[in-house]
């Protein structure tokens, strides 16, 4: 029984591997494409329809408030990551954002800090490790979470472990909030994923290369050393 399953699974992996293009950044392409297909199916039958309904039911103004609320909860750890990367000024900026938005911004639903000139940053532990000199390692597709690398996957693990949302009780409320956050995020990405669909010949490859480029750019805060064209 178990041996059969194991055999079927390894066969799926091996046959998956046969279709790879031998990209050195993506040694597990066969396996990744399997997870990718799972994620795509999940997106098609559950996440995307939910996001579409969500957009239809809730006015843009309200969705923006919900987005702000979750964005505010993330700012303290964005600040921590800026401190860990030695960017003290940016870290102070992030904590000031949290202070102003949590109070004057009514628990974060209004982004008053941006109006005051305190810009939102994009940081996480994966970027911090990159800043410390860690290379990306092999490309990975995580179940439900999508594109990642070994380095960013470890970073994401830390991000989730330290996520303040995890401490919210009762559990039902916590789970509802996590689903709401995910739906709101997916709704924000509806346009982008449609454009990706139009632009790509092979969506898997296009998305992978865009992810790797994007992360590299983020680690250098938008100013990566220029790669030379051949």
């Amino acid at each position: 029984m178990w041996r059969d399953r194991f055999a079927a699974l390894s066969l799926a992996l091996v046959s998956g591997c046969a279709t790879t293009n031998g990209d050195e950044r993506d040694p597990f392409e066969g396996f990744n494409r399997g997870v990718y297909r799972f994620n795509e199916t999940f997106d098609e039958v559950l996440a995307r329809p939910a996001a579409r309904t969500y957009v239809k039911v809730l006015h843009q103004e309200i969705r923006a408030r919900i987005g702000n609320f979750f964005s505010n909860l993330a700012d303290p750890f964005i600040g921590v990551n800026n401190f860990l990367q030695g960017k003290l000024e940016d870290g102070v900026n992030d904590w000031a954002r949290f202070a102003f938005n949590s109070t004057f911004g009514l628990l974060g639903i209004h982004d008053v800090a941006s109006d005051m000139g305190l810009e939102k940053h994009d940081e996480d532990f994966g970027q911090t490790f990159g800043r410390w000199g860690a290379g990306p390692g092999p490309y990975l597709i995580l179940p439900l979470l999508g594109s990642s690398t070994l380095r960013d996957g470890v970073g994401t693990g830390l991000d989730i472990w330290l996520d303040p949302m995890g401490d919210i009780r009762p559990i039902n409320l916590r789970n509802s909030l996590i689903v709401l956050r995910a739906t709101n995020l997916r709704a924000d990405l509806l346009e982008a994923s449609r454009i990706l669909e139009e632009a790509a010949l092979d969506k898997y490859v296009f998305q992978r290369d865009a992810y790797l480029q994007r992360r590299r750019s983020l680690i250098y805060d938008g100013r990566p050393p220029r790669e030379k064209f051949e």
Partner: protein
Amino acid sequence: MRQLLRVLLFVVGAFAFPVAGQDMAPDALVKNVTLEVVELIAKDKEIRAGSRAKLVSVIEAKVLPHFNFAAMTALAMGQNWRKSSPEQKKRLTEEFRTLLVRTYASALAAYSEQKFDFRPLRARPTETDVTVNVRVLQPGTQPVTIDYSMEKTASGWKVYDVMVGGVSLVVNYRTEFANTVRASGIDGLIRDLSAKNRSLSEKK
């Protein structure tokens, strides 16, 4: 006779350089074109009602003259460009151009309501290869950066790559192109590109 020749020369010259502002600095060019196109979109009833064809025609008229598609295609093809025949190069450039215009139209339709922050160019006047930075500001999220790589040519500054949020379009198509060429040759890539374009134009 000499008079006539001069007039003729003038007319030919005017056709050879139909684009206004070819002596314009690259950052000023990006700013003018962006603002002009965004304003056109905001005013146009058909585009606001969702006409993709009208939007594409605006992009063709206003934006495309400032792009060097042959250079973009060559960079995306990498080493395979040298292995392509002139006819293949022509077809590749056409198909790639069509695909990029469609993608650009979709992006513009989705994000035209944003505010732009045009960064002043930091380059010496003698430089012939520069990057012009634009930031798209959105409340609540980190601004999206758009970097135009531009090269000075005889007919003004031309864009040969666009980076959105640190993702270079040219670099992103490289692997896709290389994989397709490896699997089914340069003609296979041309076939795939034109099939992609056909399926997109049928959808709308």
